[in-house]
């Protein structure tokens, strides 16, 4: 199925849950509300035409510093955001970040149809939680733990939501844009 048809089949089935959609560089993307996520995901997996049986990737993006340059970066010298200087023909412009501070991003793939679909779920900072997909894909278990660890987004219904890459007792969520890159949290001894 081509990207447009993929989007069409999801939006026609869930007109309320899908808030927007776009195709950028031939990647089909559907933006779904947190409430509609579980129903849409189940449909993607079980619909025989979509047959998106792989949950290839699950991650998140913190859009709070989008377009603000990298003033907080380790090697930032100016901190001034510079507009792109060159214009490569932009046939399918990207509509921009989905609006809320966080976006949980799902990449699905169909092993039989060989097509891919990206699901973006905007998550507000005040209520950083989405439904867990662990009942549908066991792959979501560790991936959701990683998103919790790195971004502090909760997954409701997850069997064992705990840190995975960082240690217990680590404070904060390192991939949030307001976590300073040079911050140290020594685990053993002050000189660590």
């Amino acid at each position, binding site marked *: 199925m081509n990207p447009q048809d993929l989007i069409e089949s999801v939006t026609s089935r869930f007109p309320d849950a899908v808030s927007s959609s776009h195709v950028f560089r031939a990647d089909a993307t559907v933006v779904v509300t947190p409430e509609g996520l579980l129903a849409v995901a189940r449909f993607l997996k079980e619909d025989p035409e979509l047959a998106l049986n792989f949950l*290839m990737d699950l991650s998140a993006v913190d859009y709070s510093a989008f377009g603000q340059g990298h003033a907080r970066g380790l090697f930032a*010298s100016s901190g001034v955001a*510079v507009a792109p200087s060159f214009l490569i023909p932009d*046939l399918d412009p990207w509509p921009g970040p989905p609006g809320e501070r966080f976006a949980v991003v799902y990449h699905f793939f169909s092993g039989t149809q*060989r097509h891919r679909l990206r699901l973006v779920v905007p998550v507000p900072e005040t209520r950083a939680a989405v439904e867990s997909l662990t009942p549908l894909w066991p792959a979501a278990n560790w991936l959701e733990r990683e998103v919790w660890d790195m971004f502090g987004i909760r997954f409701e219904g997850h069997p064992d939501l705990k840190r*995975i890459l*960082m240690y217990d007792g680590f404070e904060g969520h390192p991939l949030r844009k307001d976590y300073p890159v040079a911050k140290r949290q020594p685990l053993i001894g002050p000189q660590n």
Partner: protein
Amino acid sequence: MEEHAPLQEATPEKVGTHTSSAQLEMRDMLLNIGPAHPAMHGIVRIVAQLDGEQIEKAEVEIGYLHRGFEKMSEQVDYNGVMPYTDRLNYVSPLINNMGYCMSVEKLIGISVPVRCHYVRVILSEISRITDHLTCVGATAMELGAFTVFLYMIKAREYLWELVEKVTGARLTVSFCRVGGVKADLPEGFAGLCKEAFAETRKVLVESDGLLTRNRIFVDRMNGTGVISAADAIGYGITGPFLRGSGEAYDVRKDCPYAVYDRIDFDVPVGTRGDNMDRYLVRMEEMEQSMRIVEIALADMPPGALQLDPDTGREIPAAEMVDLAKVGDIGAISGGCAVAGPTLEGSGRAQRPSIAADEKRVFLPPKEDVYGNIEGLMSQFKLVMHGHGVRPPAGEVYFPVEGANGELGFYVVSDGTGNPYRVRCRPPCFAIMSALHELLQGESMADMTPTFGSVNMIGGELDR
């Protein structure tokens, strides 16, 4: 000599008197394996609940090699991420380089020349062989076949010499650039490849003879670590691990990228999904990778090396730099110096053949940087903070076939010089998340071949 009295044998009655009086306490044992354990390639911890020798429950704990790849990628420019990608799967770094570069190129909307695609394909297939050699060799060693390990590491050495000839480094190669590669293949590479492959094939035949019909090896691999194709898909497992279960998904075949659609190769598939099938799949994939390299070398369009030799004499770039340093620019002020496009010349004078024809993306050749003002400016703009490669705002996901399965990069750009977000989908993360299920119900000794066939690479697992 006096006669020894026969040793007293414990009769059932005697044993009975000892045990029947006291009730033996039965309980499970909790065994902690790792994080630093010889069989835990890298560092990972498995807590196993044992009933006798049987694993009743296992819990896998990762994160010991977390170095913040994704956070660090946000701090540097697009080309600056390259050295970090080397350190993901450090046994096949060229595949990571290629995957990251192709995702950024997709984001920008450029495509590299066909010759560059061929160079990338050749090197990533060589990397795939080194990865599989390491995996099979280490597994065999842990099952007692130390000879095979030594043979396979020897073969890996020949291949790493090839990699070194092209990139100048063995492991941390940083060879690709957004929009191209650092250097063309050196002269006589096809011949070197032929020699290295002859040695590798010899090793594969020897190893095959030592393992495939070896009673000890077969008994421990057959029927252990079984996973069905449906379960594997549920866990997002890809690569040789999934193919061992009978699902023929290979990114190179099913979502072809670079020039894989022009190359004829087979995807080996297992039937039982056990350790033996995964071993056989990996052995066959090495042969197929060599086949791909051979086809690619033959099909490669002529590039820099075959161009007209009359355009100028070839001088090593290092020599030219030194001249300029001492103020003797007479040798290079007369025009654009022509150096070989290979690593040795580092010249890339015939750039269009291996790099995208897009000045605002690809770093200029060193001859231009030191030889004329346009080159110097171009280099300066690209390297200076905030002026480098600046893709338009957007997000892309691009998968390549890594040695362990689908290696995907999800890159988000906000239009500035640094990537806004770089997410790496590490293929062995999915396999490790299913490991507790593979181990459950098996005996303790089966853990070694099962964990070996996962081919866990700490660098890409923990990032």
